[in-house]
């Protein structure tokens, strides 16, 4: 576990944040503490579900329901994301027209690095997700970007996640007030009610994981992104993190934002950071 390092880093960030936000948000200044947030977030789930093994939260609804777990295990014998995974592996290895490839865009040739995404890019001053980085890689090499929600993007991220399976999520919060602001904005987005149903992300994935909403068993928010991308039976296909956010919005009757909108990038940053230490399990299979 990288706790110690994170705590050190975190306290530096907090100190800085106190300075940066002192002027505008006096009340909030003592609250922006990602390390404490992550700890509280994890403890909430660990206490709410004392029988679920910590590393099992990343298996979503299957960590919560025995009958579904069995169906999942049967599916995992030959998982439905198999084709996407194979396609992703092939695509990842195929060179661009200029002869370069995805491996040239990523640390360690793109292998075993999923747990470090999203990261905060201090040059841009924004969160960069894996999906965004992949499309930027394509564009930098003269290739057209892919749709963020499915097919090629899901295949590529499936392969990259697969090479990182079991590695603990390891999201860094650099010593930069903008990173802290992004984290805070992601948190705000996560807890804010929206749509005609008046649901926040937390309404379902914090308050009611394991329960059924209509037919679906809700996944716990803790580690929910560690399984991305996912094959959803409901979609009869693969979907990315972007697709998951968009469909969650639609289901609460909120008009989704554009893929990779700042809010989505930030909420991905928040959710990934609070899942630090939990293993990457993607690509996943879900109902």
């Amino acid at each position, binding site marked *: 576990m990288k706790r110690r390092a994170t705590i050190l880093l975190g306290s530096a960030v907090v100190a800085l944040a106190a300075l940066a936000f002192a002027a505008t948000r006096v009340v909030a200044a003592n609250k922006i503490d990602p390390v*404490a*947030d992550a700890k*509280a*977030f994890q403890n*909430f789930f660990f206490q709410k579900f004392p029988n679920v093994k910590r590393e099992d939260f990343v298996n979503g609804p299957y960590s919560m329901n025995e009958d579904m777990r069995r169906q999942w295990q049967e599916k995992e014998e030959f998982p439905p994301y198999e084709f996407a995974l194979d396609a992703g592996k092939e695509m990842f290895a195929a060179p661009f027209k200029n002869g370069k490839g995805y491996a040239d865009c990523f640390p360690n040739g793109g292998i075993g690095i999923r747990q470090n995404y999203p990261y905060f890019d201090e040059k841009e001053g924004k969160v960069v997700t894996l999906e965004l980085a992949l499309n930027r890689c394509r564009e930098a090499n003269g290739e057209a970007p892919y749709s963020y929600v499915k097919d090629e993007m899901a295949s590529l991220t499936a392969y990259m996640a697969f090479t990182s399976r079991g590695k603990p999520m390891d999201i860094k919060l650099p010593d930069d007030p903008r990173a802290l602001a992004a984290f805070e904005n992601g*948190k*705000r987005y996560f*807890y*804010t*009610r*929206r*749509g*005609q*149903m*008046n*649901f*926040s992300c*937390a*309404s379902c994935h*914090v308050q009611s994981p394991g329960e059924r909403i209509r037919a679906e068993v809700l996944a716990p928010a803790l580690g929910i992104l560690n399984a991305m991308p996912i094959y959803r039976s409901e979609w009869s296909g693969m979907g990315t993190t972007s697709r998951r956010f968009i469909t969650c919005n*639609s289901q609460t*009757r*909120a*008009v989704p*934002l554009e893929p990779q909108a700042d*809010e989505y990038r930030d909420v991905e940053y928040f959710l990934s950071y609070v899942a630090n230490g939990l293993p990457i399990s993607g690509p996943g299979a879900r109902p």
Partner: protein
Amino acid sequence: MKRSLPLAMLLALTVALPSARAATDADFKAAYAAAEAAFKEAAGLRNQWTTTVSTLAAAKKAADGGDFDRAVASAKEAEALAKASIFQATSEKEAWKAMEIR
């Protein structure tokens, strides 16, 4: 349920509009302009509801078909929905913090 507040607002607004005479194109234009303004404000707050979008589209479609009664009713409903979403976004500016795990 937790969604009672905006829904109650919506109900109050929609119930308050029965009109005696048949609506005209002008009635529609006025109702639609008001709805559109609220719609744009909600979009600016990045909190549009899917139902606002569909109801506004239904208003336009009814007007195009010459059914101004229905067009005005839909436009008013869309305005009410948009306003409820604005209310939601505004109150959530602080309210979300109550939900936070600490």
